[in-house]
């Protein structure tokens, strides 16, 4: 396989606790992968390691066949300079559970900051593109507001536009609807559904099994820092191989709005 996202043998410990214990994951260009699993299974850490927000203890990440965070020299992986890490991260966009919009900048400037400051592109052209993106996520009339003036659902849609403005190869979503009031979840999922339909490569850590069933090509079930099961979304969600996957799915379906703490 060429292009896409490739995670190999990812290991990561915090203190004495090993959160990732050797995770492999391949995401083909245009594929939508949903990662599900109980809290504390390492899903969020997996995404943060994928774009080197957390340095790895072992393993490697490749996006578009480029190593992220490390370079191969004399048979070893050396951590790259901050500048090279930043350049590799450009290939991946990320949407956070807590939105993490820049609270001192308007919605429009949140979206244009990266292309103008990092990619050094023409501000006029960037602004035109940013307004197009904001229209696509249904926020045309909010362009000049500050993030604090928006609802959670609106903020998360701005965050998606901000990530898309960098034209990444892969979009990473870290529980994008978990911090939202229930009535606002739908508007964010609708935007994500639109991106998937346009062929965006996406890795979505989520508790929304319904969304996974509808949009995902592949579903990955993680528990205790390892991938327990991976396969076509239909198959994994309908007739999982692993009893742990089955137990988790049964639990989530019984308590659809609760944090899923046990599987």
């Amino acid at each position, binding site marked *: 396989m060429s292009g896409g996202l490739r995670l190999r043998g990812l290991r990561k410990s915090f203190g004495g606790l090993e959160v990732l214990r050797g995770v492999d994951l391949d995401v083909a260009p245009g594929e939508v992968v949903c990662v599900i699993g109980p809290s504390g299974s390492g899903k969020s850490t997996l995404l943060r390691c994928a*774009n080197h*927000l957390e340095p790895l203890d072992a393993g490697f990440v490749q996006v578009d066949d480029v190593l992220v965070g490390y370079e191969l020299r004399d048979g070893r992986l050396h951590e790259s300079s*901050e*500048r090279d*890490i*930043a*350049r590799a*991260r*450009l290939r*991946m*966009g*990320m949407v*956070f559970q*807590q939105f*993490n*919009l*820049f*609270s*001192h900048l308007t919605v429009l400037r949140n979206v244009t*900051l*990266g292309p103008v*400051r*990092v*990619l050094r592109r023409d501000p006029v052209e960037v602004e035109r593109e940013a307004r197009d993106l904001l229209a696509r996520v249904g926020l045309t009339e909010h362009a000049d507001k500050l993030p604090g003036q928006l609802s959670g659902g609106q903020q998360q849609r701005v*965050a998606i536009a*901000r*990530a898309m*403005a*960098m034209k990444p190869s892969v979009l990473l979503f870290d529980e994008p609807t978990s911090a939202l009031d229930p009535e606002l979840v739908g508007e964010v999922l609708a935007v994500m559904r639109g991106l998937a339909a346009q062929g965006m490569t996406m890795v979505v850590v989520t508790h929304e099994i319904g969304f996974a069933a509808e949009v995902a090509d592949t579903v990955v079930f993680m528990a205790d820092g390892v991938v327990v099961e991976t396969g076509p979304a239909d198959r994994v969600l309908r007739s999982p191989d692993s009893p742990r996957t089955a137990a988790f799915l049964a639990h989530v379906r019984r308590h659809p709005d609760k944090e899923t703490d046990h599987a």
Partner: protein
Amino acid sequence: MMLDTLHTLEVVRRRGFASRWGTGAVLVVVVGWLAYTVVTSPNLDWVVIGRYFFSTPVMEGVGTTLVLTFATLGIGLVLGAVLAMMRQARNPVAVAAASAYIWFFRGVPLVVQIVFWFNLALLFPTLGFAPTNAVITPFLAAMLGLGLHEAAYLAEVIRGGFLAVPRGQVDAALTIGMTPAQATRAIVLPQSVRVILPALGNQFILILKGTSLVSVIGGGDLMTRAQQIYGQNYQVIALLLVATGWYLVLVSLAGVGQRFLERWAAS
């Protein structure tokens, strides 16, 4: 009392332990008496105060005090920002170096540091090719002492401002391809300014008054000039009142400036 008539009754506010008029009157009498005794004291020559308030040496002193204050603020802000970033760095050597700096320069009294820089020649008679005393003028010694000391305090003020910016916004800045340094400049610094300003106004006033310590090395500031003048004419109280008046004027102006800056930062 019937509940349905309660809403028609008059509301009487609770009074403090004494009435405003009473405490106000006592205050006016006490302060007025103090002012009267000072103003009418035969030992205080108002003509002298009037003569020196706008005199050339005093005005030069005010100028030097202002230059020292802003130079100290400048050195303190730049060096303090660097120290604050070092304290947050991943590199443990940077963290330790910044912590040691802050520990040292916050721990040694300011007047000791000023006298130390002034007497640097006793430790290093020459700096490069030049004799130390030709390089370290009293003004430069004053600036080094004040600036290096202030940087230690401002580092902590600035670090507090950094901590007020949610860490997630830095993560977000990194994911749109910024380096940590870019994220600090574009995301963290502008947002911490709002948090830092009130404390910074406080520091500014402390610096302004702290410059008077450089009189111990003849730094040429307002206090130095006042001392030089009363050393000749023995009008100690009059010249101290000249200095007091100027310090109060400058501090008041700083307060106005701070309110203006805070309103600007909030918009």
